[in-house]
């Protein structure tokens, strides 16, 4: 186990280094850089004065150096300007757009993103698992068909369209303000019960919208997995020996059917941070997704780079966790034994 873990860590570090290089160079691929684009934009709005400051800033952020040098500075292998030490030293860099250290920019959005996506994940599991069990037990019943139909609609409906429709009607019927994660009147206020209530109200639509397609997919997979297990001998035997059907189902087939979902945890973790970008954009949610998109568009390189790296780290860690969990969950999986 120790050997396995050390090996895993070594590959993880290698993978992350590779990812960091790739992300940085891809961010830098489009022509121009943040400041020159910024200046062009300002000038096209008649702000010639902005150009005067350009050289000043470009030098200050080292944007006039070659890309590989900028990458090394970012990683912390080379000294940067403004006392910037680099990722490996725990300095996540500077956001040009917000004129703030990256951690300050991302920090605010991060926990709201976690909240939203956790709510979504919870919603998906709470809704999907019971429905899947029902559908598998009563295959080809009316209920099964009804859920299947609903599921397909959920899969087929573009989420941003659903978001807009729901936003509109939630506002018309229940007076919930459009977009955001709470009513804007609470924006600069501490967390009072009223603000929390507003937050919960505003969570309904995004949770539904983001969760719907996930729910539909999960129902289908869970149902298929369960159907596989339900025809197996051990289950038939268990029922024949007189185990009550529910207990018989939950004890073994259900556990086996969970396997694919456990291996999905690796994907779930990064999703908690970077998921639902489109819906967040449409609904104007103050989450990490829109920040990442804006950063990529404006080539706010350290901010975009940091978010992508963060997601990469979460993916790699998630994979490790799901491997360990699988080993614990399913006795048939053994590590390192051929």
């Amino acid at each position: 186990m120790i050997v396995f873990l050390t090996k895993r860590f070594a590959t993880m570090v290698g993978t992350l280094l590779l990812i960091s290089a790739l992300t940085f160079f891809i961010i830098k691929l489009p022509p121009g850089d943040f400041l020159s684009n910024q200046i062009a934009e300002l000038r096209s709005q008649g702000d010639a004065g902005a150009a005067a400051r350009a050289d000043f800033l470009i030098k200050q952020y080292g944007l006039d150096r070659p890309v590989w040098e900028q990458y090394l500075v970012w990683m912390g292998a080379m000294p940067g300007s403004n006392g910037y030490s680099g990722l490996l030293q725990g300095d996540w860099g500077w956001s040009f757009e917000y004129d703030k250290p990256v951690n300050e920019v991302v920090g605010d959005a991060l926990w709201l993103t976690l909240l939203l996506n956790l709510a979504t994940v919870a919603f998906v599991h709470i809704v999907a698992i019971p429905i899947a069990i029902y559908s598998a037990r009563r295959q080809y019943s009316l209920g099964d068909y009804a859920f299947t139909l609903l599921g397909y609609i959920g899969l087929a409906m573009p989420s941003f369209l659903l978001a807009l429709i729901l936003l509109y009607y939630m506002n018309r019927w229940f007076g919930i303000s459009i977009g955001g994660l709470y009513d804007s009147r609470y924006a600069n206020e501490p967390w009072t019960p009223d603000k929390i209530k507003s937050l919960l109200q505003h969570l309904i639509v995004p949770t539904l919208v983001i969760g719907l397609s996930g729910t539909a997919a999960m129902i289908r997979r869970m149902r298929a997995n369960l159907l596989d297990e339900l025809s197996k001998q051990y289950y038939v035997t268990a029922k024949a020996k007189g185990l009550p059907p529910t207990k018989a189902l939950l004890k073994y087939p259900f556990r086996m059917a969970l396997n694919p979902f456990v291996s999905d945890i690796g994907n779930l973790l990064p999703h908690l941070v970077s998921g639902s970008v489109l819906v967040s954009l449409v609904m104007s949610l103050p989450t990490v997704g829109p920040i990442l998109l804006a950063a990529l568009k404006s080539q706010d390189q350290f901010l975009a780079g940091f978010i992508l790296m963060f997601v990469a780290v979460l993916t790699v860690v998630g994979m490790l966790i799901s491997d360990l969990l699988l080993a614990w969950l399913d006795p048939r999986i053994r590590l390192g034994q051929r």
Partner: protein
Amino acid sequence: MTRLPPCLNRPLTRRAFARAGLGAASLALLARGAQAQSALGPSTMPLPSHWVETPFFQKLVEEGKLPPIADRLPQQPLVVDLKARGREIGKQGGDIITLAARARDLRYFSAIAYNRLVGYDEKLVLRPDILESVDNQDDRVITLHLRRGHRWSDGHPFTAEDFRYWWEDAALNKALFPAGPPIFMMIDGQLPTFTVVDEVTVRYEWHRPNPRFLPTLALPRDPMIYRPAHYMKQFHSRYSDAEALAQAAARAKLKSWAALHNRMDDMFENSNPDIPTLGPWKIMNASPATRFVFQRNPYYHRVDEAGQQLPYTDKVIVDIASAGLFPAKANAGEVDFLARGLSMPDIPVLKEGEKAQGYRTLLWPIARGSQVALYPNLTVSDPVWRKLNRDVRFRRALSLGIDRHTINNAIFFGLGQEGNNTVREGSAMFEPDFRTRYGIYDPEAANALLDEIGLTERRGDGTRLLSDGRPLEIVVEVDGEGGMTVDTLQLLVEFWREIGVGLFIKPQDINVLRNRAYAGLPVMVAGFGLDNAIPTAEMLPSELAPIFQDNFAWPKWGQYIETKGKNGEACDVQEAQRLLTLYITWLSTADEAEQAKIWKEMLSNHADQQWSIGTVADALQPIILRDGLKNFPVKALYSWDPTSLVGIYRVDEVYWDKAERRVAQAL
């Protein structure tokens, strides 16, 4: 504003009163004759008999935390003449809620809350605003008179020192302005002589007229030739301890004191709540936030005739929401006022919510040369395309091949102005011929022109062939965000097929598009037409000359001028060189009649040469106005330059007519 000393009696120039069917904004185009000379002098409005304390500050004044109103105002406040402009004396109080797409867009608030040293009024006459008056001798010696007793929003006096600080300690400081002072301060690369006459008078003197100086001060992007010296000095190495500054810079993760100075110095961007302002409202909180609050400035220099200090509304609240939600939020009644960020396709959604939510959607024409204009790239790298784009017959043919009437009906509800990319009817520079020369639909003439060039070879489907055998298929590159532009181009595909020209639309990110244009890659770009379509003779004709690289007709020529010959290419097309000569002539003259003549020749040159191909102008800008907000025009012109979005219509005079309406849904 005159450019002649008063001793020269000059007859009044012809006035052009072209009515564009706009009440409030009928641009009564005063040529700057004897009448306008007084425009830069002190205001003739009498002072009110007494001052009314602002309710919002009543408590603070009683507690002694704020001086009473009489001590807060300058000796000569600007008394606004509401009645003369068909407005009413309003009531103080209440908040206005509006939206912005991101914190960086708060800069536009400075354009909307228009206050300038000298600013345009609704008739586009330049008048003193923050200044009490201006003495102008031939645009060469310009003396600015401040208002005695005028104070910054923190109560500190606003004096000549603030001008001196910006000029001597900032603009001329190589650490802060590595490229030297802003270009409009110079003539032939020579700096003005700056003199502090006394604490409320400063003088700039050039060796030749600098007609750029005063109009630049009134631009939507205020160049701000003054700074709150008492605040900025704490970040300046000349006035503060170098050691402490270095530490402060390091704390802010900045390299030098200059970087820190630049960071704090953002009067226009509204990102630093600490810097004092002279504007009507002052920002109270910094980003990141989802809601920004602007609160009234107790020392603001404008008052009404009843002795009430402006602005009428106490706060402007800006909520941050993604631009895509603007129409939905307006439709749900969540905004009191909103203009920037809405566009023509949103109108049905906006109209739908009016009754239920109690607001109105005003529809203002956008004063642009053309809502969608095509720019054949004269500096494209491909030699075959370059030769063709530079052939005036080709450009004229493309223009004659556009059925603008159909575009107008299909996309602009039939309300637009069809024709070239030129100034608008109502500008003194306008002539009907500028709009229509080669700007009509005549496919036969277009085909004849293309045949004359020698593009007679055709492919099986009727598409003409280029001289090297490639099909004549133009890839028009366009900013992916511009929905109306893409819609218009899709109609163009059909029109140009009739004249044997293929068209492909390539939407992309605007930054990528610009960088491609600088590199000479696009054959043609589609974008907005002239920004300023209602110019007066004193405004700079810079959009018409090949001097900017972000003009898609000639990126490399512009580059050449902007980099002083280091990059790009020198302009080598005679007709475009003429534009350059005219522009330089404009810059060196103080005679307004001559400037008007230059404007007209440049516009005529543009119509004749079709440097850009216009389609339809006068798209509509929807503006949301909550019922109960008064003193805002029902119809006027909307633009960036010169109206500063809605700035010149003076939003500080907007008020809530009933007290109960004032309690915005906020707070």
